[in-house]
């Protein structure tokens, strides 16, 4: 490949990153099907890779890709129409009936934004498993290649390719229309979209497996998807809540990892390494959620908690009383063992380790929490603060044996060692 060709290829990739969602969405609407829409878009991309090195990059590359895809679709339809008419001819001869003419309604090129939103609703459709939703969203909406997604999720490329093919097949078999959800299911479908975006973010923020503590590329993709969604549905307060949460958490990304790759906990982070630009963006997004006047949802509350940390110059001056109250509100709205656990930590910071331990004892009756590594780690920390080092060490050891993240295991094992 000549250097000029590889330059053009990189430009084609760049155009694709910008245009993928809109091209796939528009073609999916024409085809009425996401699987077909994506195939058409990929064919258009291949055509671009063939033709752009000689013809140059078109002035409006997105429209060029859509046009090529649409032409391909029309060719297919025409071919099928010929086939259909031949078949119908046979049917007519057999039954002497009249062929019902199928008139393909030419749809107007209306608002592309609506198409992108429909695309998100489809790739996050409840008929799909969660791993399928995240893979499909990254492929079709974020415009990542299968190789990039496989690398981010630490799986083999054929495995990821299979997952994407199967997801498209599932959508086709379930006859999922490329359409906006009915008004009565809009809220739950939007929740599903938010969940997928946050799943992608969290896989990057606290990698559940593998040797690396974070995979920031996934955080960035999730944040970009969140920002796109916030402009598509600006009146939805939880969208801004989620964006605020991700901006604020991202602001700490580079402070969370030591030079050797080991994780640094919030209390030990050098706050000068927090990204002030992302903090400002996060606080602005939180304000946007607030201004909609419907209170804060689970994401907004978590963002409000993250904002307390972001505003505090150090751990001591953090408003732990407010954080405890926010966790309380969160537990009411979206009860979960992890929220309870965090609430116990916040209580211990606001009112002392006894208060935290008391809450922890109350909630570990819950089986989901009892054998979670975080429960053991928190208990270890509280016991240490209460001057009970032997019990604390036992809890850290237990926590180390329960986690699946290598880096976290090292950190916990370190705390389990008697301090010198």
């Amino acid at each position, binding site marked *: 490949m000549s250097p000029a060709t590889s330059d053009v290829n990189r*430009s084609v990739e760049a155009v694709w990153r910008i245009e993928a969602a809109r091209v796939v969405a528009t073609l999916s609407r024409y085809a009425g099907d996401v699987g077909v829409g994506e195939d058409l878009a990929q064919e258009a991309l291949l055509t671009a890779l063939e033709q752009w090195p000689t013809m140059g990059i078109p002035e409006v590359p997105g429209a060029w890709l859509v046009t090529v895809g649409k032409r391909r679709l029309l060719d297919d339809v025409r071919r099928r129409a010929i086939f259909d008419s031949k078949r119908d001819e046979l049917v007519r001869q057999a039954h002497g009936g009249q062929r019902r003419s199928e008139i393909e309604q030419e749809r107007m090129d209306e608002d592309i934004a609506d198409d992108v939103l429909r695309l998100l609703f489809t790739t996050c459709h409840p008929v799909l498993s969660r791993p399928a939703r995240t893979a499909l969203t990254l492929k079709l909406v974020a415009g990542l290649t299968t190789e990039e997604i496989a690398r981010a999720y630490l799986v083999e490329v054929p495995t990821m390719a299979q997952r994407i093919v199967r997801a498209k097949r599932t959508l086709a078999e379930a006859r999922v229309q490329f359409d906006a959800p009915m008004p009565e299911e809009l809220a739950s479908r939007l929740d599903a979209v938010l969940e997928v975006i946050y799943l992608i973010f969290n896989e990057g923020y606290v990698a559940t497996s593998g040797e690396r503590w974070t995979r920031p590329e996934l955080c960035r993709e999730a944040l970009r998807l969140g920002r796109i969604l916030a402009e598509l549905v600006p009146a939805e307060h939880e969208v801004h809540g989620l964006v605020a949460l991700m901006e604020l958490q991202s602001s700490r990304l580079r402070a969370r990892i030591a030079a050797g790759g080991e994780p640094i906990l919030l209390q030990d982070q050098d706050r000068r390494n927090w990204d002030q630009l992302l903090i400002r963006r996060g606080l602005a997004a939180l304000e946007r959620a607030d201004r909609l006047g419907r209170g804060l949802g689970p994401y907004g509350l978590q963002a409000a908690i993250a904002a307390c940390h972001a505003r505090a110059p150090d751990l001591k001056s953090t408003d732990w009383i407010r954080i405890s109250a926010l966790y309380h509100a969160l537990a009411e709205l979206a009860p979960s063992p992890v929220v309870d656990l965090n609430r116990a930590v916040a209580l211990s910071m606001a009112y002392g380790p006894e208060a935290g331990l008391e809450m922890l004892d109350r909630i570990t009756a819950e089986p989901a929490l009892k054998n979670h590594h975080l429960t053991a780690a928190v208990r270890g920390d509280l016991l240490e603060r209460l001057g009970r080092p032997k019990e604390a060490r036992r809890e850290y050891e237990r926590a180390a044996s329960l986690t699946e993240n290598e880096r976290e295991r090292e950190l916990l094992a370190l705390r389990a060692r008697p301090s010198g």
Partner: protein
Amino acid sequence: MRFMMFMIPNISEQDWVPSAEAVAEMTRYNEELTKAGVLLSLDGLHPTSQGARVTGAGGKVTVIDGPFTEAKEIIGGYWLIEVSSKEEAVEWAKRCPAIQGAASTPDYSGPVPVIEIRQVFEVEDFPPEVRAAATSTA
């Protein structure tokens, strides 16, 4: 990765404040960047007549007030964007209405706008000793 896109309009101080039409076009462009989820921040800058240049040489600090009439390539504003490659930043710069406007006019003879694209340093771009220096000022 983050990129700064510096707008260098190459216009005179008198023409510095853009027309309502130009502002409307630029706002549409900024919205496009926002909707794509890539825009982190942006600003437009006053002309150099309201600025100053501070230099250190010959054993002293010198302050020169604007305008800098002899200077070329004066920055008019910037966008800070988060994208996945330099090529993507270039693609976005190409779509700027000031660039498009000048490019799409045959026999264009007006000021030639330039967008300079520069990648922002991340911590991991530095060698370990530089990284250490960046965090040991306490």
